[in-house]
């Protein structure tokens, strides 16, 4: 089911805020690795939850160009809205 960009953004921000260290502020431009301290496997595990949340298949390969929170939201939005 297609979801709006805002819905996806809110959901991802909520998921990420549970993963980042206390006191770290999230913004669209926050770098997942360097600023938020998310190692590659934390992001991959987050992807499992995202796939289930939106009932999509989002191959790991798609994360190659994802560096910031906005990159992640953009990519999920693209996949969600291209799924049948």
């Amino acid at each position, binding site marked *: 089911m297609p979801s709006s960009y805002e819905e996806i953004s809110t959901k991802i921000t909520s998921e990420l805020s549970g993963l980042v260290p206390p006191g770290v502020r999230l913004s669209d431009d926050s770098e997942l690795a360097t600023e938020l301290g998310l190692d590659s496997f934390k992001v991959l595990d987050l992807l499992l939850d995202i796939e289930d949340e939106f009932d999509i298949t989002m191959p790991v*390969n798609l994360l190659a160009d994802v560096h910031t929170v906005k990159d992640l939201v953009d990519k999920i939005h693209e996949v969600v809205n291209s799924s049948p």
Partner: protein
Amino acid sequence: MSLFAKFQPLAQDREALLSQGVDPFGAPIEEIYSPTEARINGKKTILAGTNNYLGLTFDKKCLDAAHAAIDEQGTGTTGSRMANGSFSGHRALEKEIATFYTCEKAIVFTTGYQANLAVISGLANNEDVILIDADSHASIYDGCQLSGADIVRFRHNNPDDLHKRLERLGERAANALIIIEGIYSMLGDRARIREIIEVKKSFGAFLLVDEAHSLGVLGEKGRGLVEEAGVIGEADFIVGTFSKSLASTGGYCVSNHPQLDFIRYASRPYVFTASSPPSVIASTREALRRIEKGGDLRATLWKHTNRLYKHLQDSGYELGPEPCPVIAALLHTREQALRLWRGLYEHGIYVNLIFPPATPGGKSLVRISVSAAHTAEQIEKICHAFTTLAETASASD
């Protein structure tokens, strides 16, 4: 950013480790006395982190075979399997591994890492999809990446989660490649292979089982989880390594699919890697014969494993989910794990230290690999050291 700037965080981490006196990620083994003892930094040390499950590194027949092969065939092949690197020993070993598994086809590779790279990237391309267990070894991830296929992870050892993700793929599921491991290298747990095979069958997908840590360890003849679970014929591809129970270096893939042979032509890691030296092939062939009749070694291995696992559990350590020759103690922080590792080292025991992100769940691990060559006395020393260090290890930073 300069070419080397990316190493800065690693340099800082390494500096912190080296300031502790020894590098856990490059222990200097100065002299090796036996499968379970070496001199490290001038100190006689019990080796309990070497994956040498059956302790065959000094097996007399393996040594004699390797010596003879060097004398007769030289020190190396100087070429890839595709060119001048397929000696009679390589081809004989392939026949013997195929017979060992009662499979039609086998290919031998130069390392276990190369086996996964070659097989996965040879089988799949950018039109395919591969489903991998979330705790898969790095060689599986790298093989998938090299293939260009879509990589979909499923939750660790969870057949229902695999089923759900295959279902989402629709028609693509029927051609999907599923990859699991016989024993997972981090926590030492077995794959739920029978249930996973049921899922695979229901979609018509293919299954590759990596038996790197289970070869020689599980099954009456040591053929791994596929033998223990009675499903040898139901795995499409079985991959493994020579560098653990077979005590040399190399890798293999067996299959009943005749198309396996085309990997030899289609897979760049196979085509462009020099083949194993004759001595390695010769010792591996002897070791394979030994593990097939290695019920005695497996009995000792599992006796030590059960003793050690229960002792660590009783001492309050958080461990992997089941007794297995890979025994992982899980620590909440890097500092706790490093303290435990250093403490064991000072007690004359070498184990593996593993930090996130290589570990599941973001925890740090101190990992033991048990060997059939350990003596009961060595196992008791390891037990004693862990008990002594339990409080130190769990202390807050």
